[in-house]
C-alpha cells in the first residue's frame, strides 16, 4: 500500500482545471515535493512566531495575511519574508488573486519556491486543494482481475488465467452492465475507507478475448457499456470445481478479503463446464445489493425455520 510522490508540479498541472492556479514566480522549484496532504495558513509565522510552523504543507495567503503584511513598513516586511522563506516550503498560493509584492517575489525566486495566484476566496481554495491533495495522496494498488458495474454494485472478478473471466465479463456487458477494467484493476483507497476501482489509463475501454484479440468495448457495445471508476462492493473468485474444498452453501456468514486494508465482501463460485458464470455473478451482485440494504434471505428463512421448530417442540 503506497501513494505516488506528489510534487508541486503535479499538484499544479493535474489540478489546473479545478484550482485555476497561475504560476507567478519560483518555477525552478516546481520539482519540490509536497510532504503533507493539506493546506496551512501561515498567519502567526508572518508576525515572527515560527514555533509549530507547519511548513511542509501548501501555504495559503488570504486577506488576513496580505493586509497584515501591507500594514508593515517595507524594511520590516522584507525581514518577515526572509524568515518565512528560511523554511523549506513546497509552494505558496495567494487566493482572491491577491498580488504578492516585489520583495516577496524576489525572496521566492532566491529560494526557488513556486508562487501561485488563485481566483477563489481562501476558504474555497483550501477546500478544493485539500480534496485534490487527499486524492493524490490516497493509497493505491493493483488487483489482478476484471471489474464490472452491475446495477450499482462494483464487482471484481478474480480467478486463474484461462478460467473464463473475460468471457464472463463479456456476457455481463451484453446483459447491459458496464466494464470498469479488464484483467487488471487499479484500486484507490478514498477517505481511508472506500475502495474505488478503475482501469489503467492506457487500456481503458479495451478487452482482450482469446481467439479474437483486442476489442474496444465502447465502440462495439456503446458508451453505456463502460464506466470510468466504481466503488468496490464485492469480490468474486472463480475457482475450478475440483479445487473448491469448502464453499458456503447457505450464505448466512459473510466472508471478506482485505483490499488496501478494507474488508470487502467475498464469495467463491465453483466453475464447471455448462455453468452460466455471468448469470451466477449477476445474481451474486443482486444478493449483495439486498444485503447492503439490510435484507439477508438466508437469515430470514432460517429464522422462520427456527420459529417453526420451536413451536413444534413445545407441543
Amino acid at each position, binding site marked *: 500500500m503506497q501513494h505516488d510522490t506528489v510534487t508541486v508540479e503535479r499538484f499544479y498541472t493535474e489540478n489546473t482545471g479545478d484550482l485555476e492556479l497561475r504560476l507567478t514566480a519560483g518555477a525552478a522549484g516546481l520539482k519540490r515535493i509536497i510532504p503533507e496532504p493539506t493546506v496551512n495558513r501561515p498567519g502567526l509565522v508572518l508576525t515572527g512566531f515560527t514555533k509549530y510552523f507547519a511548513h511542509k504543507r501548501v501555504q495559503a495567503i488570504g486577506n488576513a495575511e496580505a493586509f497584515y503584511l501591507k500594514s508593515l513598513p517595507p524594511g520590516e516586511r522584507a525581514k518577515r519574508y526572509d524568515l518565512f522563506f528560511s523554511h523549506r516550503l513546497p509552494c505558496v498560493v495567494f487566493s482572491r488573486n491577491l498580488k504578492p509584492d516585489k520583495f516577496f517575489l524576489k525572496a521566492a525566486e532566491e529560494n526557488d519556491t513556486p508562487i501561485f495566484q488563485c481566483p477563489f476566496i481562501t476558504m474555497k481554495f483550501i477546500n478544493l486543494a485539500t480534496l485534490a491533495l487527499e486524492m493524490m495522496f490516497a493509497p493505491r494498488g493493483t488487483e489482478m482481475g476484471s471489474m464490472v458495474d452491475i446495477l450499482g454494485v462494483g464487482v471484481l472478478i478474480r480467478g486463474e488465467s484461462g478460467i473464463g473471466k473475460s468471457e464472463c465479463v463479456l456476457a455481463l456487458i451484453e446483459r447491459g452492465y458496464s466494464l470498469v477494467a479488464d484483467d487488471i484493476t487499479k484500486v484507490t483507497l478514498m477517505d481511508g475507507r472506500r475502495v474505488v476501482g478503475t482501469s489503467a489509463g492506457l487500456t481503458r475501454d479495451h478487452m482482450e478475448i482469446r481467439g479474437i484479440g483486442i476489442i474496444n468495448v465502447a465502440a462495439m457495445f456503446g458508451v453505456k457499456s463502460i464506466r470510468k471508476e466504481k466503488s468496490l462492493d464485492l469480490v468474486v473468485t472463480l475457482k475450478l470445481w475440483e479445487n473448491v474444498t469448502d464453499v458456503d*452453501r*447457505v450464505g448466512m456468514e459473510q466472508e471478506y478479503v482485505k483490499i488496501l486494508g478494507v474488508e470487502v465482501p467475498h464469495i467463491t463460485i465453483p466453475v464447471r463446464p455448462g455453468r452460466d458464470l455471468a448469470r451466477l455473478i449477476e445474481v451474486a451482485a443482486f444478493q449483495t445489493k439486498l444485503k447492503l440494504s439490510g435484507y439477508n434471505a438466508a437469515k430470514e*428463512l*432460517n429464522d422462520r*425455520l427456527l420459529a*417453526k*421448530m420451536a413451536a413444534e417442540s413445545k407441543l
Partner: protein
Amino acid sequence: MSAKKASPGTGPATKELTVTNTKGIHARPAAMFVKAANRFACDVFVEKDGEKVNGKSIMGLMMLAAGPGSKLTVHCEGADAQAALLEIEAILKRKFDED
C-alpha cells in the same frame, strides 16, 4: 434391508436417528449434513413423518423442519452407503457441534 450394525460394507444402509441438538436442523446443521453427504458417491435420503427428501439438498433438509427430538430415517444407497451412514450418524451424535 437395514444395517443396524455399524460396520462399513456394501449395499444400502438405513437407520433411524434422533435430532438431539437444542435448535434442531436449522441452516447451519443442514449445511453441515449436506456437506458430509456430498463427500460420498452414494445417494442419501432423509425421511421424517412420511416426507422423504434428498440428503444432499439444503433446501430439502430445511423443509423437514426437524426440531429437537424428531426422528429421521436416513437411507443411503450406493457403493459407500455404509460409510456415509456412519459419518452422518456421527454428526447427529455430535449435535452438529452445537450446544
